[in-house]
């Protein structure tokens, strides 16, 4: 290993890579940029290939985000995250292991980062192994990656192709013969997925099964009343026909 420190730059936008490279060349002429990555997957390959001391990682990249890359290469090099807008609150996680830069990167800020990096690379030869915890926290902070495993979209065959229906738009599902009828404010579609399967895949906070053949969206319920025989009857937004809750599911409406 030569004495010169090595780094890679990962950013999906070419201009920004070039810009950072030029700036680094001015501020830290000794630093060797061994490679540039256009996306997260390339970044991992290059890190494994040329074993840099430092990785400049843009957070929002196709393939894998900068944070995901950091998780995969934990301990192999020092990390500097770059982001246009600090919605991941990287700042809060600034530590020995992780530095960050906000776009547009100014010379002054980059100088500060470089001096810190120099110190680390020159005094300590090994980057800390254990920052996975910080990365996990960062990932849990990422707003776009909700970990919900419930159905968000329903695919329904229509004349014009496969239509995608957001589950939030659905008022109720009702089984009809071999198909399931999906009712939305604007109309209805037939899908082949049976109620039984849907009941397992839909978010139970948002959808309730009220009958062997019916699942309704909780947010669409406008009124719950009782019939003379004690059955619950529910009225749904934009739907004139009331639906009956079968006894098996009436516990959902108790104490309401």
């Amino acid at each position, binding site marked *: 290993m030569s004495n010169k420190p090595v780094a890679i730059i990962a950013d999906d936008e070419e201009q920004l890579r070039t810009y950072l490279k030029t700036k680094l060349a001015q501020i830290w002429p000794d630093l060797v940029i061994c490679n540039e990555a*256009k996306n997260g997957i390339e970044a991992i390959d290059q890190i494994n290939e040329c074993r840099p001391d430092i990785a400049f990682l843009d957070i929002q990249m196709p393939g894998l985000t900068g944070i995901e890359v950091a998780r995969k290469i934990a301990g192999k090099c020092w990390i500097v995250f770059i982001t*246009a807008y600090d919605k991941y609150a990287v700042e809060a996680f600034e530590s020995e292991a992780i530095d960050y830069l906000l776009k547009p990167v100014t010379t002054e800020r980059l100088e500060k980062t470089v001096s810190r990096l120099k110190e680390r690379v020159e005094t300590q030869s090994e980057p800390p192994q254990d920052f996975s915890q910080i990365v996990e926290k960062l990932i849990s902070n990422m707003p776009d990656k909700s970990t919900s495993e419930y159905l968000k979209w329903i695919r329904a065959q229509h004349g014009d192709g496969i239509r995608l229906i957001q589950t939030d738009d659905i008022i109720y599902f009702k089984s009809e013969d071999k198909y399931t009828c999906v009712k939305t404010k604007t109309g209805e579609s037939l899908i082949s997925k049976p109620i039984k399967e849907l009941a397992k895949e839909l978010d139970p906070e948002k959808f309730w099964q009220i009958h062997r053949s019916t699942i309704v969206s909780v947010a669409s319920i406008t009124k719950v009343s009782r019939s003379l025989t004690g059955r619950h009857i529910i009225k749904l937004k934009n739907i004139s026909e009331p639906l*009956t809750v079968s006894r098996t599911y009436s516990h959902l409406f108790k104490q309401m």
Partner: protein
Amino acid sequence: MKFFDMEHPKFSPLKLVIGTIVMASIVAGVLFALKIKDISFYHYFIFSQSIGLSQVVSIILFFYLFHYLFKDKRHLPVMIFILLFSGLIVGSIVGVQIGAVITGKAVIISLMETKLIIDIIIFNLVLGIFITAGFVIKARFFIKLETRQERVNQIANSMFTLKGFAITLVFNTLIAIFLHFVGLKGKPFGSIFLMSQCIGFSVFLSVNAWFYLFRTLHPFVPAIGGVLTGSVLGPLIGARLLGKINLVVNREFDAFFQAIVIGLIFGAIGSCFFYFRAKYSDTKAQAEKERAKRIESKKEAVETNLKLLQAQIEPHFLFNTLSNILSLLDTDLDKGKSMLIDLTKYLRTSLTKTRSEQTTLEQEMEMIRAYLSIFKIRMGDRLTFKIDLPEELKSVYFPPMLIQPLVENSIKHGIEPKVEGGEIVISVQQKAAILRLIVKDTGQGILNQTQDGVGLQNIRKRLSSIFGEEANLSLIENSPSGLKAIIEVPYEQ
């Protein structure tokens, strides 16, 4: 309707009773002054009071019964009418009887006849329940109707037929024969027969009427309700027809009948007064609600505008673009300039547009072109785009910020996350009275990700608030990859 809100009644019972007494006294005075019947003021007074009070009491009683028995408050206006009406009738009949007893005039129906009537009613009730049960079983297990609604419809339809009439006639006759030989020996068969038919057919017709009015309730509700209503009406009609056969103390009957009619008229006037007063206060409350709603929607509009504004100068977009421009100042001055021009164009149009209601499609597309041009420089080969706006549609007015969020979605969730990038095609078509805007991308599609699509909900909300029910946004899978978002709105020349 407030009129019916038994938990927070609009009237205090005490006030109602005092009001009724006063009103009944006035009625008695007026009738006495008019000398409608040659009887003393005492009689008028007692009859007025007993009829009036019985009416009020029975109406309140009926309302309370309905309120606690039927948690399901559908058909409210019809129900109020029926309750008022039956309350008035029952009150009048009972009132006349009470008045007659107090004044010692007569007992309308002799004990014997009462027994006859009660017997017939019991028969009817039992039969009614059995027949209804039969119908329900038939509809459920033989015709196999899934929902209760279908079953009730089936029962209602199969009952009001010639066959239904014939069966009723046969049943009534059987009841009459049975009572003649077993229950009431010595009564002339004719009168039992007539009474039985009167009650039977009243029950039959009222059950049908109930089924017609309360199609959504459990079938036993109209069955029992019908039998009870018919049981009140039937004996009255029977007694009227059998007037000669000494069922009713004959001479008094007309007087009682008149008393009932007069009581009904005044009762109806009183009810109307209360009904409309309640309705008036309801209307006022409604107007208040509307006003609150208007204010709410105004507030919402302001909030949406604010959100739109924020959406356009989305920080991530802005800072990324600015740092691109900064880097281009060192490397490619011309590119940097053109990017700055595009950013200015985009910001200017979008910032001024959110405040105006409408822009032309041309303006909107220019803004989108600027937006996409910025991304084109940033993403290089990874993005290609095409905007297809026919010449004749350029000057069409269109609300701002409906297409842009779709384009933004295509970039953000379709093309940007996809390693090899893709193409965005925006096109506008007009077919007859429909304007169709399509944003198509070859990105990674929507199913692979977990985004919530709050933006889409906002577009839907805006579409429906601007165009009403006729507008719609649909999402269709693009083949082989990506997403096609289609906005359809009504188009006027």
